[in-house]
């Protein structure tokens, strides 16, 4: 829809949004506030997926992470932590290790990603309907060689097992007489 330059500008806006919200997620002292920033960061990531023509993954990102996981995190914070207290305290050795890890990560990124300059201006290679709902659903449940029906069913069995286990753990046990 737009010429490349405008898409680039949009990319940088979204990327800086992700960075700023991610940094705020870490440096904010209040746990609930950092959960809120985490949601913003997830939503911005979903916009990234949209820019890469991955509609369904963007929707799933919002549904599963922003709408599901973080809501449960917020719920848990409200139920467990003392309200309004800033409970996070950062110790110095931990900061040192974290800094070391981040620097080495940035170094690796710089070393390997910046070598391939075509990455920085590449258009999304997939066509607009490559990752549409229909094609994803058809491939997930297809029994052809490129289908994923066995792994899909295996994961669903795994999730069912997890559900039953969590219910068993959480249910009230009756006293044996």
């Amino acid at each position, binding site marked *: 829809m737009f010429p490349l330059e405008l898409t680039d500008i949009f990319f940088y806006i979204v990327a800086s949004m992700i960075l700023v919200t991610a940094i705020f997620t870490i440096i904010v002292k209040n746990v609930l506030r950092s959960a*809120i920033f985490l949601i913003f960061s997830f939503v911005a990531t979903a916009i990234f997926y949209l820019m890469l023509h991955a509609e369904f993954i963007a929707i799933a990102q919002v549904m599963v992470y922003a709408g599901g996981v973080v*809501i449960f995190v*917020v719920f848990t914070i409200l139920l467990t932590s003392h309200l309004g207290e800033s409970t996070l305290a950062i110790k110095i050795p931990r900061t040192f290790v974290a800094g070391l890890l981040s620097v080495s990560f940035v170094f690796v990124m710089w070393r390997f990603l910046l070598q391939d300059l075509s990455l920085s201006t590449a258009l999304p290679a997939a066509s607009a309907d490559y990752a549409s*709902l229909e094609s994803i659903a058809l491939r997930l449940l297809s029994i052809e060689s490129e289908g994923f029906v066995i792994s899909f069913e295996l994961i669903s069995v795994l999730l069912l097992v997890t559900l039953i286990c969590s219910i068993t753990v959480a249910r009230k046990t009756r006293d044996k007489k």
Partner: protein
Amino acid sequence: MMIPSVPHPLGDWVRQMIPIPELAFLANALICIIAICAVAIGSAPILIYMERKVCAHIQCRLGPMRLGYRGTLQTIADVMKLLFKEVYAPSGADKFVFYLAPMIVLVAPFLVLAMIPFDHNLQVSNLSVGIPFVIAVNGFGILAILIGGWASNNKYSLLGALRSGAQMISYEISFALVLLFVVMVSGSASLMEITLSQSGTILDWWIFKIPVLGFLAFIMFFISSIAELNRAPFDIAEAEQELTGGYHTEYNGTAFAMFYLAEYINLITISSLASTCFLGGFFPPLIGVEAVDTILLKVPGFLWFAGKVVLMIWAYMMVRWTFVRPRVDQLMALEWKFLLPFNLLLLALGAVYIAF
């Protein structure tokens, strides 16, 4: 991709008038935003008036009668009062989160409103993943209620927020399952194509097309959407008698007005979803008789759509003022022990229907 394509002739006209495609795109987007805001904000005062009248007539009163013809100007006075009140946060409240919550609560209703097909060409964005999108953005409403109740620094607010969080997360499951049923039988997740799959006579609407299942699914949708809307009888989130208003106890002025507005826009969007998924969207209720059908077809589609939406809203209001509120545990038992298994059964039966 999610581009507001504006299939309406107006969009083509703008594209002709403005030679630069980017500027035309922005102009079209602006038109879409203004239209959505007009629908959302314009209908809220009407709904407030309607709610007060319906409530009054159920309780054998007359409702607002003094200001204007049968009290029609009363609703403007209500809105003015809300907008001109001073906005302040209670002491000890987390100010940032406190003022963030009313902004987040409006995200979901406006986004869903952009997906609704009001007529053949009146839809902001015809998204192929429309139904998953609706389910996904509903999470923001829960988030706003949770953080709004927490930031108020009030035990009633927090209790209301926790209750509503638990309630909305639970009922979202059966809400999503019923919508999945509709997606399954109509074969598409796009709201426009769901509507188009119901073209024909009144018997082609999904509520009647599948013999008994359609009607049962519609009732399931109705129950779970009342809980999604946090309306009575499932309004344990605000339960005036127990929690003095729940999560928005400490909000006043414009901040409260935004919660209130979100509630009424949600009412519109859920009713629109109901009429899109079950009541044939913008199609007139044709009965197969030539003479009647030609007259029905003369009425434009968006009027039929508006009529169905008003009918649904009226049904929600009747239910609100008729039934008593269940306890929290009863509400949860209803969802997890009745609605959820029943919805799964409905999905299985729907699959059987498709197979035949």
